[in-house]
């Protein structure tokens, strides 16, 4: 009897733990599938009947939503790609040299609030005449993606046994070849983790684009926030847009949760 009660209590606490997450996302979905009348009804209507896709249609019909989605895709992919190109070799070099001080420098990038980069970079992009393009947004997103990639890669390369590369070096390979053809294929899981994490955090980022983006260069988080600020608030389309913005990362998380957990634990625990 006591064991059954214990099990029941345990099941209830698991439910309590996951219910805040479930409830917010379900409520978001519910708001996005109801008409305006039901969304502002009191007491609230929980289950859309009948559900309508009208809100989604409205989102796509106005607001240049597709343009902003494209901007977000370009920014996140470029920032992730460049960070991988620069960060994977850097992680390798730092791991090989055991350069803890260099690693510490990257840690400080994790500590610094995003806003504190923005004043000088904002002024610089103005002088360079780059405002109104996506370039400043991609460059500032490197501030987020590069430390993630370097940090995850350091811990992955440190975990690899060095014997295979040493064997390659003895056989006459250059250091670059040893990295490119031995270490990098072995570290592919690490690269996947770094890639997923930096994509997600670039996609979610708001602060850089809200300052640097012009009308044509908004990313999705900024565009969605503008819907709240500048238009008559209608909850249905707003929720539909919010859900569309966050859906890619939620799906990615569901598909790659193992890698994400591994990366965050490695990066986090070693990261401080």
């Amino acid at each position, binding site marked *: 009897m006591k064991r059954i009660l214990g099990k029941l209590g345990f099941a209830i606490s698991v439910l309590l733990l996951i219910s805040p997450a479930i409830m917010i996302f379900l409520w978001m979905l519910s708001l996005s599938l109801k008409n305006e009348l039901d969304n502002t009804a009191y007491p609230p209507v929980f289950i859309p009947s009948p559900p309508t896709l009208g809100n989604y249609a409205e989102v796509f019909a106005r607001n240049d939503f597709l343009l902003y989605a494209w901007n977000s895709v370009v920014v996140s992919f470029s920032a992730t790609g460049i960070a991988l190109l620069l960060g994977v070799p850097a992680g390798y070099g730092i791991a090989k040299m055991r350069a803890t001080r260099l690693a510490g420098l990257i840690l400080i990038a994790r500590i610094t609030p995003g806003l504190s980069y923005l004043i000088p970079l904002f002024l610089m992009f103005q002088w360079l005449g780059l405002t109104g393009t996506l370039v400043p947004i991609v460059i500032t997103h490197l501030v987020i993606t590069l430390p993630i990639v370097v940090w995850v890669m350091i811990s992955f390369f440190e975990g690899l046994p060095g014997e295979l590369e040493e064997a390659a070096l003895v056989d006459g390979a250059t250091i670059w070849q040893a990295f490119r053809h031995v270490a990098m294929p072995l570290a592919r899981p690490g690269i996947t983790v770094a890639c997923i994490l930096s994509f997600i955090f670039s996609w979610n980022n*708001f602060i850089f684009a809200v300052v640097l983006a012009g009308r044509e260069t908004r990313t999705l988080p900024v565009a969605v926030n503008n819907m709240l600020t500048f238009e008559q608030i209608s909850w249905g389309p707003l929720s539909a847009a919010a859900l569309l913005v*966050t859906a890619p990362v939620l799906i990615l998380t569901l598909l790659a949760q193992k890698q994400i957990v591994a990366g965050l634990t490695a990066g986090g625990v070693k990261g401080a």
Partner: protein
Amino acid sequence: MSSASAIAAAAATIERRRRNYARTYLWFVVPAAVAVLGTILFPWAFTFFISAFDWHLGSPREFVGFANYAKLFTDERFGLALLRTLYYTSLAVVFPLGLGLAAALIFNQKFPLRGLARTIFILPMMATPVAVALVWTMMFHPQLGVLNWLLQEIGIPPSMWVYHADSVIPTLVLVEVWHWTPLVMLLLLGGLAALPIDPYEAAKIDGATPFQTFRYITLPLLAPYLVVALIIRTIDALKAFDTIYVITGGGPGSASETINIYLYLQAFAFYNMGYASAVVVVFFALILTLAALLMWTREKVRP
């Protein structure tokens, strides 16, 4: 040639080669280092430079030395923003740590569908903060929001949530707790997985109660991981911007104007670049000091 000198020569060759390697490995780091210099170190130096000027964007700048810093000391709005930031941070550290620890202990048990439950639990951490903030905003609506309906259903008087000066910061912390408790849970779960088994077996033989086991074995062994979580949480809470900006923009009045919001307004609403840069420098110094203090604590608790 004697064998000893041959060995010495070989050793020297190996040593030389190793040093050459070290130099070559440096080239792996150079491109990233240049990017870090350009996007991270240069802004720091430049911010410090700008902070010595009185400079509204669009008008000529004037060198004022440390006058901007002197002004900070008498700026009541800055002082209040600082206090609010500390209030927000302390709440946004304590609750995620407590809840994260409880969650980690639960997810450390084996139970059916554990993987699925864990995935659902970490979803808030990955969700786009702005998108979720919009949904919270709708839920906080005093008349039409679902939260006040829920409160009334269980017999609690409705709250003004983010629409009242007294409740706005705790409400914003609620959103932060929802977002970031999963990260604390993951860090501590990693710690729990790395704990040795022997002390637990000894405790079992000695007939310790589950609470005693937790209090005298798990908690001390987990302490280093708790400190890491504490450091990360403190830094992230100090940095909080997105949800506050989206949900309240610092309001009502300036009741939720933290340093980050104040900084944003000074720089990108009033274009007061010199003064805003001084705020950045002081804020960053504060964060670094806190982080260093916490790291020092971490060295202390390390077994």
